[in-house]
């Protein structure tokens, strides 16, 4: 336990800033999860592995001398097709089934991806160096890598772009209609199969963007996927489906929580703290709901 964080205000500022910028990235991943959960009623355990895969695409561009920031454009395009491929192979067979079946099937995909990435890219922790430098704030007491600011800006741009796309475009309208009532949408001539495939593809593309940004700002490793899945799941259940400002807020809240957990408990307990927070949130939610049920009785 280390409470130095409260004695030096600059460390608090540092943790808050880091957490907020990190949280925006989490929110972007969570947005993809909320999208597929709302439209297809699927919880994708492989979400985090898609993120890591997207990160490796940017990392490879960096290895071959292309600036990794271009990964933000390339990675979602490749990931879209991978997402559609996963949908065609596996997800379309579990869409109307029990939720647990989809959880288990995507868990299998997650293990598969983890190991394939381990073979293809090796088990080293890697990062793509963007060379953006750092900004110093408050008399050089707070360091802020420019890549983090870059990633937050790009995330916000993509999120806003997607919201507008969902509102205005034909496909976006079809996706929203399917989310509301898939049978009615089918009767009215929406090809729900195509909509599902597109939704999963868009989700994978979002993961690709987030992954590329993570490979620039943080590090990636083949086995680091599951925490991202759990984080996005947590953000979605705190915010609720279809509540975009809520997703952004709870994403940033989670980011700040993690940074403080990192300072206070130590880095080795960081992931553990995230998973424990998930359990606590679910238990809290369960007691709140059961009180509501008793009230209704």
């Amino acid at each position, binding site marked *: 336990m280390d409470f130095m964080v409260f004695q030096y205000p600059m460390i608090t500022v540092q943790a808050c800033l880091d957490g907020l910028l990190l949280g925006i990235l989490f929110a972007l991943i969570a947005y993809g999860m909320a999208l597929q959960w709302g439209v297809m009623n699927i919880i994708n355990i492989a979400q985090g592995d898609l993120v890591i895969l997207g990160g490796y695409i940017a990392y490879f561009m960096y290895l071959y001398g292309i600036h990794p920031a271009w990964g933000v454009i390339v990675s979602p395009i490749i990931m879209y097709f991978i997402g559609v491929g996963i949908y065609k192979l596996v997800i379309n067979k579990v869409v109307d089934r029990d*939720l647990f079946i989809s959880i288990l099937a995507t868990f*299998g995909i997650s*293990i598969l991806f983890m190991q394939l990435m381990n073979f293809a890219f090796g088990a080293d922790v890697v990062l793509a160096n963007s060379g953006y430098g750092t900004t110093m704030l408050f008399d050089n007491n707070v360091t802020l890598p420019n890549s983090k600011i870059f990633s937050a800006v790009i995330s916000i741009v993509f999120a806003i772009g997607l919201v507008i796309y969902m509102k205005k475009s034909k496909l976006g309208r079809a996706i929203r209609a399917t989310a509301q009532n898939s049978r009615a949408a089918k009767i009215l001539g929406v090809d729900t199969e195509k909509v599902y495939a597109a939704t999963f593809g868009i989700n994978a593309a979002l993961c690709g963007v987030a992954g590329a940004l993570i490979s620039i700002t943080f590090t990636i490793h083949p086995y680091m996927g599951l925490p991202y899945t759990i984080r996005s799941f947590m953000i979605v259940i705190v915010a609720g489906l279809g509540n975009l400002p809520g997703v952004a807020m709870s994403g940033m809240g989670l980011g700040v929580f993690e940074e403080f957990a990192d300072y206070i408990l130590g880095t080795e307990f960081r992931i*553990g703290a995230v998973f424990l927070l998930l359990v606590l949130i*679910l238990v809290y939610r369960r007691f709140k709901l059961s009180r509501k049920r008793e009230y209704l009785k």
Partner: protein
Amino acid sequence: MSKNILLYSAIVIFGLVAPFVFPAFKVQLSILCVLIVLATTWNIQGGEMGYNTFGNILFYGLGMYLCASVQVGMFFPLAEWTESGGEKTFVHTPAQFFQGMAVGLVVAAVVPTIVAGLIGYAILGLRGHYFAICTLGLGVAAGEISGGIEIIGAGQGFTTPPFPEVGGLEARGEFFYFLSFGALILTFVAVRAIYSTRFRLILNAIRDNEDKAEAMGIETMKYKIIGWMVSAFFCGLAGGIMGGLVGYIDSTDVAFDGREMGVFMVLMAILGGKGTLWGPVIGATVFHIFKEGFWTFFLGWQYVALGVLIVVIVIYFPEGIMGWLREKYPEKFGEVIDEKDRKAQVELK
């Protein structure tokens, strides 16, 4: 009934002579016993109660750490033991080893049961996928946290006490084989006894419609917690035995190994057939044979195979072996089918 007695005695006799007939497979057979125990206990939640948990690995890992800690801590300072990292600064005498193992196994079974009872009220109130994800989080959190605790070895792992010098390697294998076989018999008999009572019907009622079961006057929460405690008891026991068998405990790779054991138990129960007594036993046996074959011949690709296997089983074979048999030979399961009905169905096809 007489046929069943014949079957059971055949299995018990096979189990008793197996380590002497196939001495090379002793360790594999012990692991098989542990796997069957885990699949059977998972089936109490996932199959009978309809609560698909990824979190039974929590009790397994807890039992593993507890058994080893008690076994060491009874005679030597635990912190120094883990500090030395398995070097033989302290040596258990045979009497100390067996005494420690006995006490350790009791603790390994009882403490997870208490833990399950304590957290059961909070966790089992969750439904469906919230429960599944919550238990997944619980298992991973336990692994991450135990990986940061110094006294049980933190990241470098925990070496369990080596088997004392009585009879060498053969005796070690036989000891752990009979321990795990005993655990298997105990589990099977206990679960079979439980399934023949009203308790199983209550669990099935919870699975089929929990709200309705509650409306019929069943205290569902009480029975869910009891079911979970039964699972935790045998999971902890299996974990304690497995810890001694493997000889080395690592927080995320051996004890709270959600990626291997945690998924295996779900997969084995589903492969054999959820909600049946024999399903998990058959599923675990088939899975273990497949796994060992694959793990041996395609080393390195095992997780790829595991991922593909999960997807294939879940998508194409969700009813499992028992479900398939039941569809094929309904008479054997005591289901009476009208001949006319069957003919009509054939004509429809």
